[in-house]
């Protein structure tokens, strides 16, 4: 169970000396599992602590937001360490230590399905290095050659004599050795943990209701803050009239920010109640008249614009169109979406002179650290961020708006910790939304029904324009073209044009990012082409994927398991789609029936995924289910709309989330790991879902869905 990192006494003394002693930061850390078990043992590499009782503490630098990666990351270390898996615990890395040790733990960013795939190599190397140190220490004690010794299940054995030493008995000696520079990692055939279902380490605490989350932070003397942000994005605060709240019970302070007002009180309910009594005047700025329709029209202009950048231009599209036997043309639309993690945004901060301490459910504790330092105007060394568990993230918690607010509020009540919590309404109306995107396709087919030319015009908001503008080259944001510019299909003539259309609505990474709306458009249109060509949509795709064995592999697996082409009961129809993303490959088949009244019955969902290596198959299966719930929620109901510059939806009554009764009863996760690479697992399964479902709806009804959500297309769940 990750708990905040506990410094060893030796480290603590070092920090105290370095920072002038008397650090409140470390003193307020809660006692860790390691300490509870007795005197903590030494570190072997920055990642591993081996205790005298042979328990092993593995440090986790990436956030745990539900996917089970903290367990998977520990498995990677333990695989090479050869420790007893039953004695493994985890703790989150301290960002202050990360700064002091010159980023010893690498990236702490948690997103893009990168936790496992980006850190698997150095984590396995850390495990292997620590194992070598333990074995070498045992060999030295026995005065034998290292080659005569082996480590397994937390024990070093001298093979000729059968003598044994537990890891805890040699850890101190091992910690004085230099970690080996080059270590040989196991062949995948030798893995004992990776690839086998493991119990997640965080689940026992989660079923006990333990206070693991940011919202659960409780500190002595803590105050609570509620916040109202300018309802129109990019607007400003003008004035606050606070006559009506004078003398209200529990009120501590009203804090004015540039675009928000916070009320600090002695509990959150009082803070929020008081906030609602304030008369706040906002300056909406130039966007106070914007609506969904006006923004859609603004983005859609990108489809008509006569001159936009070209992202890819293979062959000669125009020539192919002039000799086409058939031309297919369509326009697609995907709306803004809200992430809606169950835990609303929150952050707890304590500003004490030039020191800042923060507790946050964040997808990047280092970004939180930097944001806290910048907001407080203190050096990085003076900040500590305690990473908590996240009640869902889905991309929302990589942004640090809530951190900056919490630190600003904490500055206003200096010396007192304050927990900022957003209401659900604030969360719904102040997201970094999935970007509104429109796409127009035109395809040429020859007389044999083969695709000869494809022209794509993408008009979309750009996430990169806000977060990494340097990645936009000559007007082309390849990130926004994910799944389009890098499509796996062999198309002899292909032209892809990109029109960046950024409205005033903030946009951000939402689970599967552009691979959540772009595949809906691309794979629905491939279905349109197959239909126009008079070909089976599965075979039509196969023919264009002959050079792409991984995409073909998942497509074939989904078709095989679903029994593609085999007879179905009357009124039941199938749809198929394929999409690689986040380093992995996925394909889906849906079986649906649709009544004359538009009642949609999703009878079966088959999702095949090839992530290369699977670390924990049980968690991988859970991620397929998770993507089905998250993806179908968006397809069925997901839509953020605007009126007078502000978001109209406010809570779960008007931003509908799938419940258990609506979850398809038959979901089959088909894991087909082909080995040789490490792909993501938390997002890829979502990518082919929307088009596979919409293609099945087309097969059932003849109605092509080109605009989401389905609730606006006369469809509802049966």
């Amino acid at each position, binding site marked *: 169970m990750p708990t905040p990192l506990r410094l060893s006494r030796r480290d603590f003394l070092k920090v105290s000396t370095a920072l002038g002693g008397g650090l409140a930061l470390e003193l307020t850390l809660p006692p860790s599992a390691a300490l509870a078990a007795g005197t903590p043992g030494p570190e072997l590499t920055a990642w591993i602590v081996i205790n005298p009782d042979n328990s092993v503490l593995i440090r986790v630098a990436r956030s745990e937001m539900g996917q089970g990666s903290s367990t998977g990351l520990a498995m990677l270390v333990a695989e090479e360490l050869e420790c007893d898996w039953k004695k493994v615990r985890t703790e989150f890395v301290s960002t202050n230590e990360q700064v002091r040790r010159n980023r010893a733990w690498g990236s702490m960013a948690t997103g893009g399905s990168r936790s496992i795939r980006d850190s698997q190599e150095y984590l396995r190397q850390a495990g292997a290095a620590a194992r070598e140190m333990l074995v070498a220490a045992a060999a030295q004690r026995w005065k034998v050659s290292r080659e005569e010794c082996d480590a397994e299940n937390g024990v070093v054995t001298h093979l000729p004599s059968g003598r044994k030493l537990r890891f805890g008995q040699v850890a101190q000696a091992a910690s004085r050795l230099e970690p080996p520079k080059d270590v040989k990692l196991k062949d995948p055939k030798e893995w004992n943990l990776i690839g086998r279902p493991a119990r997640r380490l965080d689940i026992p605490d989660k079923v006990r209701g333990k206070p693991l989350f940011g919202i659960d932070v*409780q500190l002595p003397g803590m105050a609570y803050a509620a916040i109202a942000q300018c309802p129109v994005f990019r607007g400003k605060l003008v004035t606050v009239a606070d006559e009506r709240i004078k003398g209200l019970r529990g009120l501590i302070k009203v804090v004015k920010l540039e675009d928000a007002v916070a009320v600090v009180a002695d509990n*959150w309910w009082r803070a929020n109640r008081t906030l609602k009594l304030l008369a706040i005047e906002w300056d909406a700025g130039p966007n106070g008249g914007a609506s969904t329709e006006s923004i859609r029209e603004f983005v859609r202009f990108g489809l008509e614009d006569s001159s936009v950048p070209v992202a890819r231009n293979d062959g000669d599209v125009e020539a192919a169109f002039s000799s086409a036997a058939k031309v297919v043309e369509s326009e697609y639309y995907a709306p803004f979406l809200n992430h809606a993690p169950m*835990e609303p945004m929150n952050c707890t901060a304590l500003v004490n002179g030039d020191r800042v301490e923060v507790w946050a459910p964040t997808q990047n504790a280092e970004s939180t650290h930097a944001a806290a330092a910048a907001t407080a105007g203190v050096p990085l060394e003076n900040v500590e961020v305690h990473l908590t*568990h996240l009640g869902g993230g889905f991309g929302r918690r990589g942004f640090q708006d809530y951190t900056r607010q919490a630190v600003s509020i904490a500055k206003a009540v200096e010396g007192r910790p304050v927990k900022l919590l957003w209401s659900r309404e604030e969360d719904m109306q102040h997201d970094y939304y999935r970007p509104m995107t429109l796409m127009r396709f035109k395809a040429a087919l020859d007389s044999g029904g083969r695709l000869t030319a494809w022209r794509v015009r993408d008009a979309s908001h750009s996430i990169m324009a806000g977060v990494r503008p340097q990645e936009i080259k000559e007007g082309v944001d390849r990130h926004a073209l994910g799944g389009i510019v890098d499509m796996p299909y062999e198309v002899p003539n292909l032209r892809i044009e990109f029109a960046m259309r950024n409205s005033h609505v903030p946009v951000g990474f939402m689970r599967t990012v552009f691979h959540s709306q772009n595949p809906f458009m691309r794979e629905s249109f491939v279905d349109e082409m197959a239909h126009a060509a008079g070909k089976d949509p599965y075979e039509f795709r196969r023919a264009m994927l002959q050079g792409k064995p991984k995409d073909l592999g998942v497509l074939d697996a989904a078709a095989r398991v679903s029994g593609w082409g085999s007879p179905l009961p009357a009124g039941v129809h199938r749809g198929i789609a394929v999409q690689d993303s986040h380093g992995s490959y996925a394909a889906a088949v849906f079986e649906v029936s649709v009544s004359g009244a538009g009642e949609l019955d999703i009878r079966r969902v088959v999702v095949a995924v090839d992530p290369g290596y699977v670390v924990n198959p049980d968690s991988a299966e859970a991620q397929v289910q998770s993507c089905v719930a998250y993806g179908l929620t968006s397809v069925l109901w997901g839509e953020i709309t605007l009126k007078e510059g502000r978001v109209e939806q406010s809570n779960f009554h008007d931003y509908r989330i799938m419940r*258990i009764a609506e979850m398809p009863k038959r979901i089959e996760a088909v894991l087909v790991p082909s080995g040789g690479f490490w792909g993501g697992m938390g997002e890829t399964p979502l990518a082919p879902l929307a088009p596979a479902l919409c293609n099945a709806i087309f097969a059932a009804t003849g109605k092509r869905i080109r605009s989401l959500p389905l609730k606006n297309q006369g469809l509802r769940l049966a």
Partner: protein
Amino acid sequence: MIELTVNGRKHSVDVEPEMPLLWVLRDVLDVKGPKFGCGIAQCGACTVHLNGEPVRSCSVPVSAAADQKVLTIEGLAQRGQLHPVQKAWIDHEVPQCGYCQSGQIMAAVALLAKNRDPSDKDIDAAMTNICRCGTYARIRTAIHAAAKTLKSTKA
């Protein structure tokens, strides 16, 4: 002062009668199991039992709990033994982020207290809590498993 019993312990709290039970539990009594998700009784993350009935504590004024018995996830285990529903949640690896699971478990415990062998339809009707991670398939499996355990222990 309002008196209420939480997980078998009596408390007197000096708060406004209209303050929701959820916030009394979380911010006054430091009982953090019930979670805040929506504040309008939509998501069920705040589900606790009031005299054995599942309620959405974000929308129950504390005055309605005066002199009543409140049970939260923290009070489910008996003499260190997890409730069969909690055990089933572990056996079937239900939680992902885990945020909604206190509420889900309290809703499931209440369902099984009334209906010892719920059908899928019964589960659909009783379990209206939102899980954004989509743990629904495993929640269903775990409820059926817990029902079996409860039957065999009570038989």
